[in-house]
């Protein structure tokens, strides 16, 4: 199985990847801008994401609510998302509507600012504040990502602050900020455009040249401060959050090799071995055998700069005290660190990852998004075809080396949610805070 990949670059710096597949009359258009919350300046947390909302508010030749309407009227689906390192925008269209999707993306890349108004900014600020209330503040464990970022990254590190942003910083965002952010980051030389599905390569190239060619190159973006971090935290980190939750839940994070590195694949296998599906170690031991957890999993954030995080996530059963939850998870991690992994566990993890990888490539949108990702982070979209082999080549020894280096006590950060209601007295608070 090989996904065809063609690439070229426009004079203004826009990097393009094309991947034809004519099995269904569907085409996916996907743009990655290499800017995320990491690029925000102090006092403007949440701005990259608020800005993403503004990109759906029209541009020079597109009215306020027209972006969504034109795509949906054409029978397409669309959205955008913001992450620490990038912001993406994507549409999946009936293939005869490729030109519309490209034109809409070009219009907002080239001429967003004429459509920006204070009123639109104010409304989207309210929408985003409601998104924060909905997804973070009024959702059990919703603060996990921002608490974790704060716990594991040093102050002033670009990954340290909240992605959705604080209410205060969202309030402070101005139209000037919009203009400045746009000029700095939303330029063709800071973007990757991918098209996957049913299209003709020559026609697509012509459309791209016509629509995106005239957009001027940017003036460059300020470099990120150094993101390099030592491979381990150096000492255990720990934070207890008393929150409006029903069950205690432990997130244990490990500083881990950056996405795409050789060691990353070993870390990814370690994560699957620990927490992917019911046959994983944590599920088998903590949920099935010991019955102290209602659920257990593990994942990597897939950060491509500085260092990544591998996160173990275990939710306690109702009758289990926080201290026991923490102790038993620590015990499992200690054991893994001390004794390593078996061949058969590695084989299981790799088999599951491979099926997921292949199954995910069925969708044109997924293919386009991964092409954009590999192009943005590494300038090599063709890496999409190397993933299966990268995983296949991971051995138990690779995983053991990784686990030996990264799963020691000096590289564990525990973020522990404790039900506020259950904590009835100061004594219990102290007991929970001191538990280890």
């Amino acid at each position, binding site marked *: 199985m090989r996904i065809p990949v063609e690439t070229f670059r426009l004079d203004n710096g826009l990097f393009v990847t094309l991947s034809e597949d004519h099995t269904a009359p569907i085409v996916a258009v996907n743009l990655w801008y290499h800017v995320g919350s990491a690029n925000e300046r102090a006092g403007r947390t949440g701005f990259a994401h608020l800005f993403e909302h503004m990109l759906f508010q029209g541009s020079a030749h597109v009215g306020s609510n027209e972006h969504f309407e034109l795509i949906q009227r054409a029978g397409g689906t669309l959205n955008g998302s913001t992450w620490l390192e990038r912001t993406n925008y994507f549409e999946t269209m009936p293939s005869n509507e490729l030109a519309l999707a490209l034109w809409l993306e070009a219009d907002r890349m080239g001429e967003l600012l004429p459509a920006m108004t204070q009123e639109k900014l104010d409304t989207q600020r309210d929408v985003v504040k409601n998104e924060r*209330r909905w997804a973070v503040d*009024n959702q059990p464990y919703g603060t996990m990502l921002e608490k974790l970022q704060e716990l594991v990254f040093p102050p002033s590190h670009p990954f340290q602050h909240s992605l959705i942003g604080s209410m205060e910083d969202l309030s402070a965002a101005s139209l000037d900020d919009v203009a400045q952010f746009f000029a700095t980051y939303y330029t063709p030389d800071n973007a990757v455009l991918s098209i996957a599905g049913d299209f003709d390569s020559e026609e697509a190239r012509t*459309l791209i040249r016509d629509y995106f060619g005239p957009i001027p190159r940017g003036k460059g973006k300020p470099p990120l401060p150094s993101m390099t971090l030592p491979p381990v935290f150096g000492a255990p980190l720990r934070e207890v959050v008393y929150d409006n939750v029903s069950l205690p839940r432990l997130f244990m994070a490990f500083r881990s090799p950056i996405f795409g590195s050789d060691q990353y694949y070993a870390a990814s296998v370690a994560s699957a071995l620990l927490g992917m599906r019911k*046959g994983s170690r944590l599920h088998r031991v903590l949920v099935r055998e010991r019955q102290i957890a209602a659920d257990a999993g593990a994942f990597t954030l897939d950060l491509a700069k500085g260092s990544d995080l591998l996160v173990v996530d275990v939710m306690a059963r109702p009758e289990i005290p926080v201290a026991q939850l923490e102790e038993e998870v620590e015990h499992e991690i200690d054991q893994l660190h001390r004794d390593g992994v078996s061949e058969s566990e590695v084989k299981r993890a790799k088999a599951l990852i491979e*099926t997921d990888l292949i199954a995910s490539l069925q969708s044109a949108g997924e293919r386009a998004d991964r092409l954009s990702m590999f192009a943005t982070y590494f300038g090599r979209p063709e890496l999409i075809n190397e993933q299966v082999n990268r995983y296949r080549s991971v051995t138990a020894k690779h995983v053991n080396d990784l686990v030996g280096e990264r799963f020691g006590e000096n590289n564990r950060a525990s973020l522990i949610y404790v039900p506020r209601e259950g904590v009835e007295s100061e004594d219990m608070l102290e007991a929970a805070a001191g538990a280890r």
Partner: protein
Amino acid sequence: MVTTLRPKPGAPRNYRFPIFVHEELPNGIRLVTAQVSKLPVVTMLILVDAGSTNDASGKEGVAALVAALLLEGTTRLSGAEISEKFEQLGASVESGADWDSAFIKLTALSDQLQDAAILLGEILREPAFPDREVERLKAERLAEIMQLETEPRGLADEKFSEFLYSDDSRYSKPDEGNTETVSSISRTDVDGFFRANYRTQSTTVILAGDITVEAARELVTRAFQSWPSGSADSQKLIASPRATRKNIHIVDKRDAPQSELRIGHVGLPRKTPDFFPTLVMNAVLGGLFGSRINLNLREAHGYTYGASSYYDWRRGPGPFVVSTAVQSDVTTPALREILFEIERIRDKRISGEELSLARDYLDGVFPIRYETTGAIASALATLVIYGLPADYYDTYRNNIRAVTLDAVLEAARRHLHPDQLQTVVVGDARVIRDSLGDLDLGELQVHQQ
């Protein structure tokens, strides 16, 4: 300067929903196969007519528990061994029950399918329901119920169903059961439900992906031989509303930064002859990003991150509901706008622009919905569960295009009932209760958690 001229669409290419073959095997199992060979992946979806509406009164949740327990042990293998065997094959498998059906869904690379399917056959033929696993899954369900107390979205959905349907309706209780009913389920109940409901004639196997019809037939015949034939008795479903008048319920949550809102009434069964006009009507009302309710609440007022409406399609009449979360201090104005939109779409014809947006979207997006073997298998499951005609997907787009302005108005008038609206607000009663007096939402009840 980007070219100012909006591009016109090119000539559309034809699309057909994947061809599938529907047959009955000698032992009574039905098999539906759609060969789609783009990638070496197959989805196998087993449907058994053993959904939550088959739960006995007082044992609500047993259907879901039985389906989950299928993967937790056979006479030969423990649950841990079952997981291990599937996962060594790289196969992901999940099982569960929704209102109308129990399902087991397997996704595997095509060269591993055979071994995985044979294992699935064993699981369905010889489940052991070990006591320890029955008790564990019950405890995990009880933990999930406990989680709902602090999870406003799930709590609002659950309370809405409870206040919507009469006590004797299965729909008034969560599909996976509540604390009382789950606690009362014994291993005997589990085993009894399985024996009564899991029969060949109640079972359909769907295969979508990189497999031929012949190979599918051979595989399913082999994997599912010697299974009790026959069919189960179906139960009569009660889906009557709890109240004939409007009511509003506040589920009090101190200091909640948002109010979770659910407003609606008992809707329509999936096989209603008005399905297409109702679908298009709802798309305009609250089904699309560009729908009236979302544009009003989100884009005009910034009250919310998103607002939508939907008919929850089931064999029986599932709920019609408008669902959103708004910041607490605008709860009353947000409710007012929702009521306004429900009245407005019943009052006057929608515009031609609105109709074309909904129709063009539902028609155009059709091929995009069936990109994956999982999506194709689910679409075929819809045919099986609701007994829709074999040409349903081939005629779908024409049926959408045939919906007129008058048909939408008629659907709104017949299937939206402002006088029967039940409203649930999960939020801070102190902030919202006084201002609610301005709205005509019926009798107010405040429920403490």
